[in-house]
Every structure is written in C-alpha cells, then in structure tokens.
C-alpha cells in the first residue's frame, strides 16, 4: 500500500471513511445552526490548544495499538496499559521526589518509569498472546481488569487512597522567536514538550511503517505471515516487537494523562483513563491504520473532550454530565460509519511455523 497516494485516491478507496467524516461535519454544522452556537468563540486558538493537549494520550495509545494490530495482534488491552502508565507516572514522580515537593525532573522520571513498566508488562502480554496463543480479546479485557484492580490497589499502598495527592505537571516550553509566530507559534512553540514528543512519535511511526523494511515486515506479519516466514523473517519476533511498542506508547499516553497534563493519578470509578484506551482503538480505525490519520481522529476526540470547557466559556448551558458523554457518542457514530474498515487479514490468528 503506497502512502503517497493522492487525496482523491484515498477517497476512492475509502468512500465510507470520507463519507463518515463529511457526515460528522454536516451534523456538527446542523448543531451549530440549531443551537445558534457562536462559532467564532468556539473555534479559537485556545480551543485548538486544549484539543491538542487532550488528544496527546489518545494519539500515543492509538499509534501503539495500530502497530500491534498491523502486525496481527489486536491489543485490546490499551486501556489497561494506559491505567498502569498513568499510575506509574504519578508513582514514579512521587517516589523520585521522596514524597515532598515533586519537581520537573521527578515528573520526567515518572514518565520514563511508566514507559519502562508498561514495556515490561506488554512483554508478558506478548508472551501470552503470541507464544501461548491466548485469546487476544479475552486477554486484552483481562489487562483492563488488572489495571482497574491493581491501579487503585497500588495507589492505596503508596498514598493510602485510590488517588494520588495533587501533583504538578510538566511545564510548557516557549521557543524564543518562533513562539511569536501567529497561531502556529502559540500552538506549537509555546506548549508542552510532550506535544512535540507526540508529534514526533506520530511522524516516526508513519515513516517506519511505510518507508522502512521493518514497517513492511510489520504489515506483512498482519497481512500474509506465511509469505514473511518464507522470506526468512521470524513472524512472531516482529509481532513481539510491535506489541511491546504498543504497550510502551500506551504507558506513555497514560503518564501524559496523569503527570504530563493532569495533576496526578485518580483511581476512582474506572480511573482517570476513563475509556481513552478504547477511544484510541477507534481513533486508529477511523484513521484507517495510518498514524497520521489516527492523530487526526485523536484530535477530533480530544476536541469532543474539551467541548465542556468551550461551552462554559461561551455560555451554552448543557449539563456537564451530558457534554462529558460527547466523546463516547462520537465513537459510536464513527464506528457505525466506518466499522467496516478492512483489518489486516491475519489479525487474531496466532502463527505457528509448523503450519
């Protein structure tokens, strides 16, 4: 699959995706007209800034999940790995600081710890799903349950309650000169360094997937593992690598949520991750397994997540409990419209060399 195909070509191959996006725009437009929403106040640089921030955890997990699924393993455990990431990010920062005042360096230690811990956890997940041929969906659900259980449990062991105390988050960085550029400067050069990392991950993921030999292996492992095997590449090794990448990125996404943009770990209910791992899966489906597309979809869901603040600032009175459901409703709309996306042929099938 060539990534350099034109937009028209993309539209021809994915009529429903494009149609779905168009329909979303129409529905949104109808909403704006029907409720007389002051659009200019809604579409500010601030809106975009908040949406980008909210999109970061989703985009990171989505890119990870996309790699796993491209290689033939449906990592439905993203939500669970994000919970572990969010917890470890906060716990790592807390422990690094010795418990008193958490500094910027401690936060980065926490983020790094989250990536390391989730990498190790996904090695275990890969052993079960790739080598021991566990049912991928059930095992993925199990990861979520493990996160829901051991996340708040560990928090209680460390802090005496299911949530951490309020922690600082990563400071924004202002790039001199560039930050003065109109719009772009404010969006990209006066922002959290984690946004740069996210954009970097997305771009690198795209380049690796479509422009390197490893990327072709990943795609082949999911589409035609026999051919890859015949070519002398160990299918399961490629899958291990892709699954571990998915866990590391989901962990990073979780840590971004808790100490990157949030104020520590919240373990009440279904924890602070609150469905973002599931939304990430839909984001890469909507993005048609393309890292750039997944980022775009994450931005859409991020914007939905931020609507509440937006509505408040412009004085549209919808109760928070309802506006908070918009991302989930958006997911349902998206899935109904593009649910047919063509998944890699061998997803869900363990590969045995003997076969």
């Amino acid at each position, binding site marked *: 699959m060539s990534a350099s195909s034109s937009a028209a070509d993309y539209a021809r191959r994915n009529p429903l995706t494009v149609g779905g996006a168009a329909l979303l725009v129409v529905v949104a437009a109808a909403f704006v007209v029907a409720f007389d929403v002051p659009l200019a106040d809604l579409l500010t640089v601030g809106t975009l800034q908040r949406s980008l921030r909210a999109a970061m955890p989703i985009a990171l997990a989505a890119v990870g999940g996309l790699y796993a699924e491209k290689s033939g393993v449906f990592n439905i455990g993203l939500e669970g790995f994000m919970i572990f990431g969010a917890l470890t990010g906060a716990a790592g920062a807390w422990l690094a600081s010795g418990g008193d005042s958490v500094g910027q360096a401690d936060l980065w230690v926490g983020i790094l710890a989250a990536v390391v811990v989730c990498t190790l956890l996904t090695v275990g997940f890969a052993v079960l799903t790739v080598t021991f041929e566990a049912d991928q969906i059930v095992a993925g659900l199990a990861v979520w349950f493990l996160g*829901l259980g051991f996340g708040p*449990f560990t928090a209680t062991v460390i802090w005496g309650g299911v949530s951490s105390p309020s922690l600082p988050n990563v400071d924004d960085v202002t790039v001199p000169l560039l930050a003065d550029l109109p719009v772009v400067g404010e969006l990209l050069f006066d922002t959290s360094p984690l946004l740069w990392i996210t954009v970097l991950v997305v771009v690198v993921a795209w380049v690796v997937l479509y422009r390197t030999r490893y990327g072709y292996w990943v795609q082949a492992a999911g589409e035609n593992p026999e051919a890859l095997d015949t070519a002398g590449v160990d299918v399961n090794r490629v899958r291990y690598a892709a699954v571990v990448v998915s866990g590391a990125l989901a962990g990073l996404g979780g840590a971004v949520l808790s100490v990157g943009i949030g104020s520590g770990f919240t373990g009440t209910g279904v924890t602070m991750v609150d469905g973002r791992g599931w939304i990430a899966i839909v984001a890469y489906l909507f993005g048609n397994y393309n890292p750039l597309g997944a980022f775009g979809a994450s931005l859409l869901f991020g914007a939905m997540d931020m609507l509440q603040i937006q509505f408040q600032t412009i004085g549209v009175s919808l109760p928070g409990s*309802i506006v908070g459901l918009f991302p989930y*409703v958006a*997911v349902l709309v998206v899935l109904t419209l593009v*649910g*047919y996306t063509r998944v890699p042929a061998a997803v*869900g099938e363990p590969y045995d060399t003997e076969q």
Partner: protein
Amino acid sequence: MSGTAGGARAALDRAADRMVDATAVERFVIAVASTALALAFGAVVVAVSGYDAVEFMSALLYGAVGNLQNVAFTLRQSTMLVLAGVAVAVAFRAGVFNIGVQGQFVVGGFATTLTILFLAPHLPRGTVGGVLLMLFGTVAAVIAGGAYAAVPGVMKAYADANEVITTIMLNFIANGVVFYLIDGSLRPPGTSSPNTPSFPDYVGLPPFAFGSSSFSVIGLGVALLAVAVVYVVVARTGFGYDLVTSGYQESAAAYSGVDPKRMVVATMTFSGMIAGVCGALFAIMILGYYTDPATFPRFGFDAIAVSLLAANNPLGVVPAGLLFGGLDAGGQYIGFTLDVPAELIDGIVGIVVLFVATPELFRIAGRFGGLGGGRE
C-alpha cells in the same frame, strides 16, 4: 464478514473451538487451577505490599462464609453475578462479545425504579400492590435492558461496528445519562445526594432465614430460575440451537437458513433482557431506591470472568458465580478489617480471566507434569 468484527469473530471462533475440544474435566481443571493460581498470586502481592498473607487468606475465607451474615452477603453478590454471568454467557455462546452487561444492568434497574416510583400512587398499598409493582418493575427492566442491548446488536449486524467497543461506550453513556436524569429530575428537592426517593416500604423481598435487609432467598431463586430458563432455551429450543451454531460455526448456521445478522440482534437482546432482570433485582432487593450508577459494583464486568470460568455454560455459571460472590464478599471484608485495599480482588479477577484466556499454558504445564492434557 469483514471488518474488526471479522477479527474478533476469528478469535472467538478459535477460543470456542478450543473450548469445544477441551473435555469437561479439562475445563474444570483449568477453571480451578486459574482461580487457585490467581489467589496465590494475590497472596504474594499482599505479602510484597507489606501485609500478612496468611491473615489475608483466612480473613478472605471468613469474610465469605465465616458467619450467617457473611454467607448472606456472599449469596447476595452471587445472585447478582449468576444473573449477570448468564447474560454474558448467552452472548459469548453465540460468538458475540457483550461487554455491555453493566450498562444494560444499569438501564434495567433504572427502568424498574421509574416504574415503581410512578405506578406506586396508582396501585393499592400493601402486599398485593408491592408484588404488582415488583412485577411491572421487572418487566420494564427486561424491556429496557433488551432494548439497550439491541442497539449495539444492530450496529454490529448491519454496520460491522465492533461490539466490544460499542458496548463499552454504551456503558459510559448509560452511567452518564442515568446520573443526569436522577440528579436533574428525580432527586427530591432539598437533598444534595443524587438519590431518587425510596421505594414504598411494601416493595421489597422478605428476608426469610438470613435476616438480611439486602438479601432474600427469593432473589437467589430468581437467579436460578433464569439459569434454568436459559439452559432450556439454549439446549432444547430451535432458537438455542441456532444461537450455539452461529457461535461455533457461522457458515454452518448460515447454510441451515439462519440469518446471521438477525441472530446477532436476537442474541444481544436476549442477553440484555437477562441483564435487565439483574438490574431489577439490584434496585428492588439491594438498594430500595436508585442512585449514581458510577457508585455501583461492577457486576457486569466480574460476570465476564464468571462466564469464562464456566466455559460460557449457563449451568456452570452457578458454581462460578458462587465462587466469585465469595471472593467479592471476602474482598470487601478484608477492605474493612485488614486495611488491605478491596481493589485487590478486582486484580485477582483480572488474573483469573488472563489464565482462562490462555488454556495453552495449562496444556503445556500438564504435558510437562504428565497430568493428562497430552492431546495434540
């Protein structure tokens, strides 16, 4: 079938094949070994976290069955888990991942609450009125639960939307909307917590032998009756035959004239109806009012573990539900007495599910240990 649902389908088909391959003894061994290993792991976690593992295990046991009150609590949790477990099992049996039992349960219980609160002024007070209210309430829950489950069923059947994700989203939406309605319109004026008014005191199940205000043998009877009905439907009716065939062999079902799309919708609806009964019982037997669903126990999720442990067999759900009911009761007890966070039990449930997902582990262990399982 194409799409994500196709991938899910393939995974489920293989899991089903494996489970069909597995003998009853093997399944039982896997279930027992999974639970035992998960508990052992839990004990290790407890020890590593600086608590006393022996004390933990004995307190867990005492909390589950130590005295009459604890047994009543175990049975109460088991009642919920058996009902929710059967709801999950029906769907899984047919190859549909209904992860939305929690949401269907929430919506069902809410329908019961609305029905009881709105009909109460129009019916005679006393036992007759109470029984009528409970009956109407349960019917409302069955309809609401079934309808709420039909939505992801239709989305899966006709738009190929992955039901794992749609049902999880609908869980979030159910919680949010029910909270909004209770907080916005049903909360009595002058109160601050998001609770509906209480049901009339003649609505409720008699405590009988256990003297517990939140458990009645009648509730357990309802759960067992549901199990029996589901078992008969699955094993003895044409619908049940089609349901199981579409789960194991979609193409065979299609050849025999079953419309797979309608089957998916019917399965989801059936599953949601049972989840609705669970919600009705929760509202009537346990709460006696309704409140913010975010504070409810996650029976719908634990039920997934219950159903998997029972190899999605409706009859197997009963012992599995009892086991998990005991775990749950024991877990809450250790939460109160030992200061060991009760969330640990959720984690242990996760481990059980992980083990059950990987029967291959036990096969290999069995081969090395020479304990049967040497089938190739």
